[in-house]
């Protein structure tokens, strides 16, 4: 059946709640209301308030109690309403979620999937358009996952819930209802730590994730009309990232462009460019280029487009890499 990303995520949660009594969902408005984006719609009615818990309005609390639940053998799937509101929970995420396994040499762990919508391009209020994924990628012990299609959203979420490591699961709000895709009804896993080859090409490699993937695809179409064959990698797991896939592709094409909507400085693009510099310098025909959001606070809707990337700007990046 063709469904959108919200429906795919909802299906994944319902199926995991069904499969494993240890799985619980908690967060602000995730119960009766079904979440502000409706990702948890109907779960409260189906599984009850014991497993789909509306919490007080307190983000550190949501993550902190999830740690205790995980230690007690549950598999919590906490939701933070927007990535821009996760910061009060940073202490719990960085000081405990990420490192409980190491601190206790594996005796206690905090397997949980912290779901949160993120990203711009939805004409939202301040704090509702953040793309601070790189903050989490710097923290050892965390796995950072971003789906870009309904199919991947379902499979990655199921894999994350079944995994042993804590996962920051970032859902691009711009893609929630952007497209419908054929998604198998039965549960399935899409492996973490593996990039997806979106499109094969031979002239350059474009690395992107989340809401930038369809933008990059559109830009690659334009490039194709101009005789440039772009290979596109959807990173899917940002950390630990699939270095092998990046290097294999770049060694083949000899050129790389990283596209992310997050600000440029210390963004993940820098890490990817450094990786390519360390491991594939002599195969490069051109410097690794980054097309990213600027280093400014993301503007409110009237001027959001000064920030947000479109296919034209990505196409400009492709051209620059090709013409070097």
């Amino acid at each position, binding site marked *: 059946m063709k469904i959108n990303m919200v429906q795919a995520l909802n299906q994944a949660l319902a199926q995991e709640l069904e499969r494993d009594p240890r799985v619980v969902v908690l967060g602000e408005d995730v119960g009766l209301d079904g979440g502000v984006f409706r990702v948890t719609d109907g779960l409260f009615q189906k599984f009850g308030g014991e497993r789909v818990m509306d919490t007080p309005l307190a983000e550190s609390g949501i993550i902190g109690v999830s740690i205790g639940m995980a230690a007690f053998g*549950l598999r919590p799937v906490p939701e933070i309403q927007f990535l821009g509101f996760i910061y009060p929970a940073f202490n719990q995420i960085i000081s405990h979620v990420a490192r409980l396994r190491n601190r206790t040499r594996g005796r206690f762990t905090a397997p949980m999937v912290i779901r949160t919508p993120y990203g711009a391009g939805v004409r939202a209020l301040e704090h509702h358009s953040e793309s601070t994924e790189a903050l989490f990628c710097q923290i050892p012990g965390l796995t950072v996952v971003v789906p870009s299609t309904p199919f991947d959203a379902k499979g990655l979420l199921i894999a994350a819930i079944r995994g042993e490591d804590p996962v920051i699961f970032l859902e691009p709000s711009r893609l929630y209802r952007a497209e419908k895709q054929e998604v198998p009804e039965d549960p399935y896993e899409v492996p973490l730590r593996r990039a997806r080859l979106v499109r094969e090409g031979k002239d350059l490699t474009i690395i992107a994730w989340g809401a930038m993937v369809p933008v990059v695809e559109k830009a690659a179409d334009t490039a194709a009309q101009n005789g440039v064959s772009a290979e596109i990698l959807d990173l899917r797991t940002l950390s630990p990232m699939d270095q092998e896939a990046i290097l294999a592709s770049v060694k083949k094409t000899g050129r790389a462009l990283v596209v992310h909507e997050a600000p440029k400085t210390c963004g993940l693009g820098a890490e990817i460019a450094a990786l390519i510099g360390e491991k594939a310098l002599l195969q490069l025909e051109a410097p690794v280029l980054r097309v990213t959001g600027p280093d400014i606070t993301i503007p409110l809707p009237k001027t959001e487009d000064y920030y947000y990337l479109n296919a034209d700007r990505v196409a400009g990046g492709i051209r620059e890499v090709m013409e070097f």
Partner: protein
Amino acid sequence: MLQILDDEGRVRKDLEPALTPDELKRIYGLMVMTRAADGKALKLQRQGRLGTYASSLGHEACQVGTAFSLRKEDWIFPYFRDLGLYITAGYPLALYFHYWMGNEAGLRTPEGLNLFPFAIPVASQILHAVGAGMAANYRKIPLAVVTTFGDGATSEGDFHEGLNYAGVFKTPTVFVCYNNQWAISTPRRRQTAAETIAQKAFAYGFSGVAVDGNDVLAVLSAVREAADRARQGQGPTLIEAVTYRMGHHTTSDDATKYREADEVKEWEAKDPLRRFQIYLKGKGLWDDAFEKELQERTAEDVEKAVADAESRPAATPEEVFAHTYATMTPQLAEQLAGLGGSFREGWR
């Protein structure tokens, strides 16, 4: 404030908990052990054999009384100043020393012991205890979950969030605040304008009780009652155990810079061991010979634990890298191999 034993060891007969002579002697032994092990840790630190250390001196009644009230199935989420609680819960002293000597392996709780690794970020563990209680409610397992923290922790947001969640979800949590009057150099009156910490429970919809934290019988009675209520599904309790940090904050601190010697002296007279000793003597359970034998045996056990801790090897590089993720990433495998190339052997 609940007090069963006063400073001079006189007992309130009507409140005296039912404990066997053997239990009473064990409680005393655990407090003696806590003080001896704590003193040893301070010595080891000065000799460079143990790292920065947070002394438990003066907290023996709080720590031993809390842990002694619990059952095997209960869970504990302690904080970093909790030696007596660890010992009483059955945590091997050698392992505890091993941690403070700079080894993560020392926080690997032995199987079968429901003792979470203590938290260093202040108050953060309070939420973990509440979450474990929520999980216990969901799994319909009747037990108590205890968390400990200092008076400074009550100013943190996680204290508020934790107690608030506990009230809303009616969790089986016993919050035990060791109000030791000082958070490094910040006195209790600078943490809150509230007259007591116990009264804060009222705002969260459950009861709070202040007890004399240097009176092990008062701590034990209050925690035991709260834990029983928790097991019966009657929700959380906040216990404020009023005590005093007799030592510096840690071995890196000098408390003489910010507090008066007179204040410390005043609290010396309220010593938790001394009053319990008088109480035991009155019951015919203590004499000089008992004390001598106990001190000797305790000192021997502490020495054994130190020798054991020091004989444990430091972790290998492989072990240091192995527990970041459930399975090692290629990145970490490469960095581990690089450690072999550059760090161990240097420039070639």
